[in-house]
Structures are given as C-alpha cells and as structure tokens.
C-alpha cells in the first residue's frame, strides 16, 4: 500500500467527524425509548472507528522509511494566531495512533454499553460523548503545545456534564472535584508550556520565531534549557499530567468520579482519559526533557512503587465494588510510571503497552461492575454473594477480566507488565545510597521492581477476594430474580474479551505499531547516562586527589605551593 493511500487532511477529518455527528443530533427526533438515537450513536461511533482504523491498518503494514513518509504526509500545520506563534498542527506517530485507535474503539464499546445504561436526555448524552472524543483524539494528535492544551481543557466540559447530568446521587460533588482537580493540574501544565515557550522564544533566535509552540521545535530546543529550568518545567508537566494519570497523592478525584459516573462514562474515563495523562507525560517529560527525566528517575520509581503497592492495599479493603476497581485502575497506572522510570526500550514499550492493555481491561471491568449495578442498584460487596449460579455469564466475564487484570499469562496485561518488569529490572541508570537514621538504604531499579512486584500478589488478592465475596458461596434469596447479561452487554464484554485474548496470545500485533518510535525515545538515555557518568568521574578526579593531598599535607611532607600545583594540573588534565 502506498503512503498516499490516506487523504492529506485525514487527521483533520478524523477530528472533525465526531463534531459533525454531534451537530446532526439536534435534527433527530427521538422515538419511543430513544432507540433511534442509540442506534445513531452506535452507528456513528462505528463509522468513526472504521475511519480511524484506516490509519491503523496502513501503518501496521509499513516499516522504516515508508512509515516515516506516511507520518510526514499526515502532518498538517496551519498558522492560527501567527503573532502569538500558535498553529493548528496535527500529526501522528505510533504512540499517537495507538492511543487514537484505543479511543475510537472504546467509544464504540461505550456507545453499545449506553443502550442499557442511559435512559434520559439521550441526544445530549451522545453529543457530549462525541465532543469528548474529539477532545481526546485532539490531545493525542496535536503537534502544537498550545493546541494540545486547548484540547486537554476542552475534554473537561463534556466530561463534567457527563458525570454531573447522568451520574449517581453524589454526582455534583464528584464532577466538581473532577473539574477542579484537573484544572489544578492544568495550571502546572500551562506553566510548563509557557516556560518552554519563553525559553525558546528568548534563545531560539530568528529561526524559530512564531513557531515556538510546535512539537518539533520544542524537541529541538528543550535540551538547551539550563538544568534547573529543565527540572522545574519537568516537574510542572509531571504534576500536571500526574493528576490525570492519576498519581498518588493526586488520585482521590478518581474513585469519586468513577463511583458517580454512569458505566459507559466510567469505561471511557478509565480507558482513555487517564491515558491522556500518561501520553502527555511520555511525550513532554520523557521525550522532550530527557535530562530532567534522567535526573528525577529515582523519585519517579519511588512514586511508581507507591502508586502500585499503596493503592493496591487500599483497593483490598474497599467495600464498594466500583471503588475497588477504581483503585485497581490507579494501581495499574503505576506500571506506566515504572516503565517510564526504567528509561530503556523495554520499559518504554511496556509503558505504552500497559496504557493500551489497561484501557481495554479496566473498561471491561467497569462494564462488569455496571452490569451488576443496573440489576441490583447496589455496589456494596457485602450485599452480593453467591451470584455465580444465578448470573453465570456475568460471572465468567467478570472472572476472565479479573484474571486479565491480575496479569494472567497469555492475556493482554501480562505481556505489557512483563515488558515493564523486565525493563525496570534490567535498567541500571541509577544506584543510590540514602542515609536513614544511621542505616544505609539502597535505592535502585531492582529494588523498585521488587517492591512493585508485590503488586502482583496484592492485585491477585483483592480481585480474587472480591470474586469470592460477590460470586462464590451461597446466594441471598433477594437476588433470585436477577437476569443474566443482555445481548448488548455480552457483545461489549465478548469483544473486549477477544481483544484481551488475541493481543495476549500475540502481543506483537500491538507492539509493532509503536515499537520503532518508542524505542527511538529510549535510545537517548544511554547517551545521557554516558555523559553524566563522564561528568561525574571528572568531578571525582578533581575531588579525589584533594583528599589524598589533605593527608599528605597533614603529614607536612609537601609544601602548600606544591599542593596547589598538583590540583591545577589535575584540573587541566580533566578539562583537556
């Protein structure tokens, strides 16, 4: 297939398509039970998915130069506010396309799930869903940091309304918390983007004038930042995206939002909205600011461990089924952080793979919880029990998805987490000894991996314990009228299950879409490492003789002048 297969403005069409679908909605007249609206919503999302999968199919077949040519031909740059340097710029690469296909695919799943879950104001609902899709895809496809920020903020409005209108009893609190929290993150994000802008416009010279927001320019110029400035901008991005990821301690909006959100919205929230944080982090922090990432890797690894182990522990004692799944979702996003902290090919590939796998599995788990909730109107684990006999289809899907989530081999999460574990363990970029009340604490990636791997035990514990309490044992009498999964629910769960199995059996089907680009990012790090090592050893060489000199001078065998001579010579040697 040639690289001209896709139209020039393919990505713009892709972004515009959901808006068009949304704009058509007011002209539809809902019939009994709004069935036609649901039909339209599902149909439109299928069309969108098919349209977006064109790029997926084409890029899946190409390699090397052909692929780069295609990506170049897909890129679109138009000046928007020229005197501010803002462009409408969209483009794609393996990472963006993987996230994009996940978005459109989960949109289809969420639309089908909406049939049984959404009963009121269906037109508005689908409108919001489509605007949300445009915003999220925009985040993944934007190639201008200002545009990126706009899409990132645009996503808030539909999501706020989706929770605030169709949510549960405590929806006002949850939606407000969601919005305020994300805005809090956005402040940092904006600070980071502006920081980069001012740096580039002040040092980039005439060549970059008016293009300061463009990604390639950022990539080329971010490295010239002073180390401290890099660290500060990195931290701004890291906190900004960390809220979305979510990263402990900025995670408490998520359980509340999930608990109140209707099932399809939960699926999208866990499946793709969190990926915006992970994607942004990968893009801005690890691709554009590698030196800061290198410096801060020990801290990121520590946060990853906390994310994985601490939230898994919290999940274990949740009494609310949906909260349990929400915390497990947070826990698994910790693997993204761990993979990023590894800073090697395995780790980065693993991080992206985890994003994808988590998107599928957590969406499926929320779907499972949703099917139970629509029937029983309770989410309290204690209210359930012994449902396995009554609703076997839901039971088996729930069990299957739990198995996928706890990392059962040959299912999707296992392959992704394997990459992360192997990557993290084999990564050897830092090794610290931290004094701690007279003890020496070691901190390196092996230890971080070891601690994170505790997550596979706790993860199995909370999921299996939950399954046991919900489905095993004797059933309370009140549930003996419960109906098993409906056809649309089975469709959603079975489709997700097929993906979980398919990509689990053959992970190359997914990894080859992003492996080249992601591995490229990783290749920067050994160079940075080598340079830092050289600098460090140079510093040691200067320092080293001084200490011996001290001993010598204390023995008074060499005069002070001679000592200074030696030091100067030493410095000359190292700077030559």
């Amino acid at each position, binding site marked *: 297939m040639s690289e001209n297969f896709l139209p020039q403005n393919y990505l713009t069409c892709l972004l515009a398509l959901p808006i068009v679908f949304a704009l058509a909605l007011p002209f539809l007249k809902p019939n009994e039970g709004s069935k036609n609206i649901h039909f339209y919503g599902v149909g439109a999302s299928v069309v969108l998915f098919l349209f977006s999968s064109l790029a997926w199919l084409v890029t899946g077949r190409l390699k090397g130069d052909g692929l780069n040519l295609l990506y170049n031909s897909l890129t679109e740059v138009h000046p928007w506010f020229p005197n501010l340097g803002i462009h409408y710029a969209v483009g794609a690469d393996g990472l963006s396309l993987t996230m994009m296909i996940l978005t459109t695919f989960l949109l289809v799943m969420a639309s089908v799930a909406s049939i049984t879950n959404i009963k009121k104001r269906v037109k508005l609902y689908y409108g919001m869903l489509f605007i949300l899709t445009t915003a999220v895809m925009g985040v993944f496809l934007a190639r201008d940091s200002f545009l990126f920020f706009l899409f990132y903020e645009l996503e808030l409005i539909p999501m706020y309304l989706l929770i605030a209108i169709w949510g549960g009893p405590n929806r006002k609190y949850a939606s407000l918390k969601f919005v305020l929290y994300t805005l809090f993150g956005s402040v940092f994000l904006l600070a980071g983007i502006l920081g980069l802008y001012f740096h580039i416009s002040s040092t980039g010279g005439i060549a970059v004038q008016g293009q300061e927001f463009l990604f390639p320019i950022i990539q080329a110029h971010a490295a010239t930042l002073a180390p401290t400035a890099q660290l500060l901008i990195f931290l701004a991005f890291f906190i900004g995206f960390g809220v979305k990821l979510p990263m402990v301690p900025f995670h408490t909006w998520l359980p509340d939002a999930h608990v109140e959100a209707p099932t399809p919205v939960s699926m999208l929230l866990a499946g793709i909205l969190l990926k915006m944080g992970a994607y942004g982090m990968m893009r801005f922090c690890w691709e554009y600011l590698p030196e800061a990432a290198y410096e801060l890797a020990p801290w990121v690894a520590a946060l990853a461990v906390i994310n994985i182990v601490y939230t898994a522990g919290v999940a274990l004692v949740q009494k609310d089924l949906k909260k349990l799944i929400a915390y497990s979702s947070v826990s698994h996003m910790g693997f993204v952080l761990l993979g990023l902290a590894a800073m090697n*090919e395995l780790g980065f590939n693993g991080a992206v793979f985890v994003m994808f796998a988590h998107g599928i599995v957590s969406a499926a788990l929320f779907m499972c919880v949703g099917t139970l909730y629509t029937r029983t109107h309770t989410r309290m684990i204690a209210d359930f029990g012994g449902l396995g006999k009554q609703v076997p289809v839901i039971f088996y899907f729930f069990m299957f998805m739990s198995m996928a989530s706890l990392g059962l081999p040959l299912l999707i999460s296992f392959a992704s987490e394997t990459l992360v574990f192997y990557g993290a363990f084999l990564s050897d970029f830092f090794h610290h000894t931290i004094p701690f009340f007279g003890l020496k604490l070691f901190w390196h990636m092996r230890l971080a991996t070891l601690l994170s791997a505790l997550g596979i*035990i706790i993860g199995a514990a909370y999921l299996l314990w939950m399954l046991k309490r919900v489905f095993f044992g004797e059933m309370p009498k009140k549930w003996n009228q419960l109906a098993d999964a409906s056809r649309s629910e089975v469709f959603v769960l079975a489709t997700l299950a097929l993906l979980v199995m398919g990509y689990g059996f053959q992970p190359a089907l997914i990894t080859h879409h992003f*492996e080249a680009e992601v591995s490229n990012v990783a290749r920067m790090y050994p160079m940075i490492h080598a340079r830092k090592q050289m600098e460090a050893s140079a510093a040691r060489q200067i320092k080293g003789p001084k200490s011996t000199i001290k001993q010598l001078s204390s023995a008074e065998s060499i005069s002070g002048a001679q000592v200074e001579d030696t030091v100067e010579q030493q410095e000359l040697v190292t700077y030559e």
Partner: protein
Amino acid sequence: MEQLTHWLIENVWMIPVYPLLGFFLILLIRVVGGVTNDSTKKFCMATTVLATFMGLMHTLPFVSQLLAGQLQDIQVNVPWLKAGNFVLSMGYLIDPMSVMMLFVVTFISLFIQIYTHGYMEKDPGYSKFYAYLALFNFSMLGLVLSTNLFQMYIFWELVGVSSYLLIGFWFTRPDAAAASVKAFLMNRVGDFGLLIGILLFLFMTFNWWMTSAGNEVLLSFTGMTQFAQAAHLNPGLLPPAGVMTLIAILIFMGPMAKSAQVPLHTWLPDAMAGPTPISALIHAATMVAAGVYLVGRVFPVFQLSPSAMIFVAVIGTITAVIAATIALTQTDIKKALAYSTCSQLGFMVAAMGCGAFAAGLFHLFTHAFFKAMLFLCSGSVIHACEDEQDMTKMGGLLKKLPITGWTYLIGTLSISGMLWTSGFWSKDEILVGAQSFNMVIFWILAITAGVTAFYMFRTFYMTFLGEYRGEAHVHHESSAMVLPLVVLAVPSLIIGFLLSGKSGLVGLQLPSFSDMIVLTGMNHGHEVAHGATHGAAHHGPFSHDQIGYLSMGLGLAGFALATLMYWKPLNDLPGKLRSSFSPLYQLFLNKWYFDTMYGAFVDKVYLVFAEASARFDKGFIDGIVNWTGTSVMGTGGALRKLQTGKVQTYVAVVAFSVVILTLLLMYWFL
C-alpha cells in the same frame, strides 16, 4: 506405520494445542448450544479425552526412542515478545526429561479423564469440568515442553489458574471457595519469588546471554546449562556467591509454592475441596510435581550455589517430616493422602537438593502413578459412600469395593517402599543420594519412610478392614471408575523395577532411569554432568543393597505398628497414645499452626495495614483536597465582603496598601 510415526514426531508441537482446541470447542458448544443434553455432554467428554489421547500418541514414539537410547533432542523457538534487541521466545523442547514428563501427564490424564466420566456423571457441571480439564492439560503440557524459563513461568501461572478453577469447581461450597483463593494466592507468593529470581539471574548474566550465547534463546534451559558449564571453567562469569544463592532460592520459591513445600504448603490440603479426579490429576500426579520438574530443568544453576542446594535439601526434608506427622492425625481420607503427597514431594525436593537429580525425578515418575491411583481409589470410596470422606465412618469396604480395595493396597505398598514395588526403587535411589550428601538428612528421610508406611496402612485399615461404621448406603463400583484403577495399578507395581537398571533379571534390556534421564546440553563426562545425573553415587557407610534392606525394614516396622494399632484395635491403643503424647498430637492435629499463623498475619497485620492505608487515603489525602476546596470557598466568601461598594472603604484600603507598598519598596531598595 512408518509414515504415521514420522508424522507424529514432526507435529509434536500439537500436543498442547489439542487440548486448547478442545477447550475452545467445548466453550463454543456451551455458548452456541446453551442447553446441555446428554449428547453434547458426551461430545465434550469425547473431545477432551481424544485431545489427551492424541497427546499420548505423539509421545509414544519418543518414549520408544528414549527406551532404545536413540532419542534426538529437538528444540524449536519462535520470538514472542520483543522490544528492540530484547526477545523473549516460546517453543518446544523434546529431551529425555520432557518425554518422561509428557508420558506421565498424558497417560495419567487420559485415565483420569475416563474415570471422571464415572465420577462426575450426575454433576450439572459435567461439560464445564471437561473444559477445565482440557485447559489444565494445555497448560501442563505447555509447561512440560517449555524451552526457557520465561515460557515456563507463563504456563506455570496457567496451571495455577486451572487449579484455581478446578478447586473452586463447586464454588457454592464455602470451603471450596476459600481453598481456591488460598491456592491461587499462595502460588502467587511463589511466583513472585520466581519472577524476581528469573529477573535477577537475567540481570546478573545479561552480558553472557548477549555475547557468548548468541545463538541461544534468552533464559533457555540449554543456555543455562551451558552457562553453568562455562562458569565452572571461568568463575569470573558468576555473580558473587551470595547473589547466586539468592537467585537460586528466589527461583526455588516457585517450586516451594507449587510443590507445596514448607512453609508454602498449606494450600494443598485445602485444595482437596475440589472434585477427587482433580486431586488425583493436579494435586497429586502432575501439577504439584511441576515444581520438582522446574528444579530439574534449572538444576545446573542450582548447582552453582552449594548453599542453595543445602537450602533445597533442608526444605525438602522438613516438608517430608512435617507433612508425614500431620498425616498421622488426619481422619479425612483425602486430607491424609494430601499430606502424604506433600511429604513425598518433600522427598523429591530433598533428593534434588542432595544432588541426586535423577533420583528425584525417578520418584516423581513412580509417585505420579501410585498416588494418582490412591486418590482415584479414595474417590471411588467417597463416591460409593455418598460423599463421606471421614475414615472414622468407613471400614470393612474391601468386601463391597474389592477392586478399589486391592488397588489401594498396591498403592499403599508402593508408597511405603515395600516388596520391590515401584516406590521401593525410587525411594531407594533418594536414600542413596541423601547418604552421599548428609547422614542427618539420610536418617530423617529413612525414618520418615517408615512413618509413611505407618500412616498409609493406617488409612488402609481404617477404610477397608474391620466393621463398616458409616450410615450411608454403600454403592458398587462403576466400570468407568474401575478400569483406570486397574490400569494404573500395573505401573504402580512394576515400572520402578523395569527402570531400576535390573530389568535384565527378567530378560528385558531397559536402561536404568538415571542413565536415561540426562540433562540436555550437558557435555557428558563433565564434572557437572556427572554430579547431576548420578548424584555422586555410592559413597557413604551403606552399600546400595544395604539401603534397600534398611528402607524395607523401616517400612515393615511402620506396617507392623499400623497393623498392631488399627487392624483390630487392642484396648484403644491409638487413643492411649493420643493422650500420653497430647502436646505432640495437638501440634500435628493443628498442622504445626502454619494456617493459624498465616491467618493471624493477614488479619492482624496486613489487613490492618491496608485499612490504615484506606483511612489515610480517605482522611488525610482526600481530607487535604476537601479542606482546600472548602477553604477556597470560605476565602471567596470572605473576599466577597470586601466588595462593599462603599467608596470610603475602598479609599481606606487603597491608602493602606500604598503605605505598605512604599514601606516594602523602601526596605528593598534602600
């Protein structure tokens, strides 16, 4: 015939694929068909049995090659997961060890599946059971054929999940539900160690894999053997001794959980809550032996650390003793057998630790037959007594269930190592290996062998002799259940002798087990190879024959004691012993308090910690968030009061601000 054999050998990779296809086929039937009538049930059964049968057919040509000493090793790998230059592969490996294991798994599986038809006929989950069995067979056969440690980890976890599904098969029963979760979690603890062990080994030897072993697949068993050999010649390749020991012990955590070694053993007895065919297949013959198989596979790496070998030997010995003592007190027939499995696995592991590699695998081999048969016998008894498992409510069943009774006796003789039955030969080899390693371990194992005879005859007497003490009406044996018993009785009796190296006595020219099962990729005559295959044989105070007489003598002592106490209980001897050794009896009865300790740890430590985390999350972290929210609102409310609209206030504020600002500016600039 020639062509058929050729085809079977060429397509050996199909062995695990058949049951997988069978599993999906049954799934499809259940999804599409919905209702399960008799014919679909039969079809599900036939699918699974056929899949296993085909596996056996593929195995047999290799078995005959192996016996003739002409087995050609086959190794095929395909990349499975890669990133950059890093490739993890899957494939299949045919070598003596895998052929032996393939035979055990397919052969025993086949007959247990036939038996299952009789046992589960009335169960509503009949076809689901066969689906799970097929899934288990896929996982187990994949594990056996693994070429590398990573692949083995994959199937290692998959057999774990099959075991979880099958233990929890009757998930409405609380004990089954609890046991399934426990089994999975305890195995996860082992898998955690295994994973970290694999990673640490890879980290420490990464350069070696990337350079000298360029043609070897990452973590492959043949590569590991080569590494071990290279490290013997060039110790510079080795990580520091402490790290090497750590690697071996971490890897060994996997087998500790899967093969139910102390202290990760408590899931196995609980797992008896599953249907009895499962106890026979998974929790006696095949899956639990996978741990020993794994140790055998990575044996050269274990040998690189003498301390780790001691650790393995000690853990195995402790398990053998503790489990045997608990088995003394059990009245549930399946629990008694489960502890006996645990104890026998301890023997195998101890043999591995003593360096008697072939002896451990030999015992795995013979044990698989007689223990599977013993469990099937117990299943037959339980089935006949209408789901009664308590031996105090049995007795005198030999008359009602003659075939079951006699085959159970054969199994008992074999596990007690008496009268040249299969168990005699393999246990003998283990003791030979142990004596060349350490005399303390030797004596403990030898005496435990005597204890084994005692508790096994105890179960036999309580179940089959004396008067019937139960209320249930005893049914007769069904043919589907009797046939496997008879078939399995044959290898339980003679297979040990045939492979003992003494088959020449009856005119057969079969190789001995230890000559047959050698490590693949090992240069023969090399020091490691020698130690690995022959366990540094024949030195120690006793000759091989003396050890044979000794172990049989101890077995006879156990038998005699059991006969004395349980054949015709004289003056309630067991009761008297129980009261005079009360503390010891309580210790054994309460399973050395392992479960109590774990329960306390989870309830009093981990759950408390998790609760505290949850409270911290809700109260502190979210508390700060909500406090920020409310205080911002509060500030907003307060600030609103400032906008009073009164010009005087504004002027006052402005004037005040100007003064403050001026002062500040003066402070900074002057």
